[in-house]
């Protein structure tokens, strides 16, 4: 019910916003097209109707599952987005994987041995991770690893292989070498977040009574850390990673632009620049849906991780 309301509000906002920003025809039309051509184009794209009527046409078609055709590509907007989705998903999941792989162990170490030199180094590094701008880091990565050292390719997506009828590039070696740099770029911010969250969570739970009791009982430090402490710090980490995943899938515009990665982020920023309204509307509505699903998944994970939530629900 609430999600339906959000969807409607989002579509209204986009229509009004695009109308306020400018005129798609002025941007798309060739400069030496004459007025007759302009009229024809305006009619072809349905922009001659008053705004409220355009919105009603859109709603009518949306209820039948048709979110409109892109002004620029003349393909159904949903098809355009779905075509690009595998590339963005690869990048998003790749960066999430990296952030957990690197962030969790480092954060755990920094929490368990807070006063060692390495811990202090890790924390300082995490500050760099969320203060350096993604744009700059991406270009630096390209300059160092592609131009100077020549170890990795500079831009673009690599060779793909078919799985379930979709082209994925992580299945090929060449594809993986192309994913590496943009995934690192995208994951830096998340690594820093995960490190700090994990460390704070560890420091907090280490002081809890049940940890002292477990150690008093004689459990090995390994079991104390990885069974008891670990599970209890996961809730904030899962929440943040979930939200970040949603944000990465939806808006990894900068990384995709810098690395010429043919994903959805690049599609949305290009569409905004030329006011390709059908694509903007379709994209934002899909993103709303996606965030709703992710939040649902996070809630389910809570019940798995935290028995208190399960017991509360039962009671």
């Amino acid at each position: 019910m609430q999600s339906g309301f959000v969807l409607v509000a989002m579509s209204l906002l986009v229509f009004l916003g695009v109308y306020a920003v400018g005129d798609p025809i002025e941007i798309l039309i060739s400069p030496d097209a004459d007025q007759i051509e302009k009229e024809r184009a305006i009619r072809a794209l349905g922009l001659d109707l008053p705004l409220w009527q355009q919105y009603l046409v859109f709603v009518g078609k949306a209820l039948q599952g048709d979110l409109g055709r892109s002004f620029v590509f003349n393909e159904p907007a949903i098809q355009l987005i779905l075509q690009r989705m595998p590339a963005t998903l690869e990048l998003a999941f790749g960066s999430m994987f990296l952030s957990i792989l690197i962030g969790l162990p480092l954060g755990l170490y920094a929490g368990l041995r807070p006063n060692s030199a390495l811990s202090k180094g890790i924390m300082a590094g995490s500050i760099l991770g969320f203060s350096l701008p993604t744009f700059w880091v991406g270009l630096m990565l390209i300059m160092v690893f592609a131009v100077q050292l020549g170890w990795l390719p500079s831009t673009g997506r690599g060779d793909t292989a078919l799985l379930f009828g979709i082209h994925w590039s992580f299945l090929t070696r060449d594809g993986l070498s192309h994913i590496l740099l943009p995934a690192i770029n995208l994951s830096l911010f998340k690594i820093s977040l995960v490190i700090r969250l994990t460390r704070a969570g560890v420091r907090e739970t280490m002081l809890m009574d049940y940890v002292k009791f477990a150690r008093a009982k004689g459990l090995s430090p390994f079991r104390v850390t990885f069974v008891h402490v670990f599970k209890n710090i996961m809730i904030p980490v899962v929440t943040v990673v979930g939200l970040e995943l949603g944000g990465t899938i939806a808006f990894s515009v900068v990384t995709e632009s810098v690395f010429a990665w043919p994903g959805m982020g690049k599609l949305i920023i290009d569409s905004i620049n030329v006011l390709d309204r059908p694509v903007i509307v379709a994209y934002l509505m899909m993103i709303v849906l996606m965030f709703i699903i992710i939040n649902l998944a996070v809630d389910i994970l809570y019940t798995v991780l935290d028995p208190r939530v399960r017991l509360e629900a039962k009671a």
Partner: protein
Amino acid sequence: MRLVLAAFGLALSLAGAQAQTLTMAVGAPVTSLDPHFHQLSPNNAAAGMIFGKLVEDDANGVLRPGLALSWSAVAPDTWEFRLRPDVRFHNGNAFTADDVAFTFARIPQVPNSPSSFAGFVRPITRIEVVDPLTIRFTTNGPYPLLPMDLSNLFILDRETHANATTEQFNSGAMAIGTGPFRLVRHANGDRIELERYDGYYGEAPAFARVVYRMITNDSARTAALLAGDVDVIDQVPTADLARLRSDARVSLSEIMGLRIIFLGLDHGRNDASPFITDNEGRPIARNPLKDVRVRRALSMAIDRNAITSRVMEGSATPAGQYLPPGTFAYVPDLAAQAHDPEGARRLLAEAGFPQGFRITLHGPNDRYPNDSRIIQAIGQMWTRVGIRTTVEAQTWSTFIGRAARAEFSSFLVGWGNNPDGSHPLRNLIACPSPERGWGNSNRGRYCNEALDQGLMAAMRELDNGARAAQLIALQRQALDDLAIIPLHNQTNIWASRRGFTVTPRVDELSMAQSVRPAAGR
């Protein structure tokens, strides 16, 4: 031993095969492979590799025989085109005059086109297929520009493309033409893969395979060139020019292009102009820009050499007229306006503005190279002669809508010419007239009826020499009256790795045919 030799030979041939692939990276994405869908330069470049035209234009904008071997006006309102025999489409179908008729009928029918090519076929009232290799077009009155207009239209095959949709072109199924390359794969917004078509009638391209990549981020594109991932890039960012010129791995190809950057002025209002006030901020009763002395002062205050050498880093040439040299009806012996701040102040005083006034100069900030920096420089130059200027740069999507509605007093904008003197006159200087289809980009609303009458007469003059003289006179008139203030012509620059040479084009199109391996490698 034989095994070693065989392996060596294989390696050599592989290396040779590798040398047969060209990777290009372009800065503007191709949105569709349907050659009639959207009149957009990147789309025209991609279509130029796969499809053919009746009339081709070479790197300098000169018209050359393409699918048509010759053409002439057999009557004042009829053009006859004699077509090239033995041309085949990529799928083996023969090219005939009937395909041309089909193509011109399809062009106005392409659905949902944001900017169609219909304007080019509108002057044609009747098409007559005389025989499979001869076709006649009847126009609405004498129309000397028909060959140039046809150099924009790509030809399709009736049997293959009878019901082709834009999506079928984009997926590659219908991307079948008479051009030098055949489509292998199209990844929308990412890359186009092509291979050489051995049945091409013209000069065979140097490369057997082409990967045409789209990298819109400037720095990433330059980095890809330096890393060796791509061989040629276009739209070289001016900030990188100095570095690339001195880099031994890279060579640059440059040519003065057809695009002119100019300032539009508000001619439509006789009373107050929206962004002009006196020095105390009160609106001025009459629009100062209607006085030609004020306009000339504004032009004299601009130091074009400083802009082209410092702001554009040498990648532009000051302009005294609309078109670069070598185009039809280029005005000879006309230099760019010299920088003369004293003269500007004198003219302003003569016109009744000894203390100057305030104005706002608008412009885009993400459309032309250094656009926001150019208007900042001009703002300072104008302020120095007493016209206190505020500068406002906006993103193109907001700017162009407002400019089209004539909301500004002065604004910076560019214009990509066709290499013919009538083109800027028709679109930028003529009175806006929906019926005639003129003045559609005349955002300052300049209107001079006498000039329009002269232009109409010139547009009906089939004799090239007479028409050129008339167009030159009309351009002089418009330039003297400062309908717009020309600033500079952009230089089109391509950067390539050593081992590749690029023939630069005046129309900015990046096509694989322009690239050859460098001699003596």
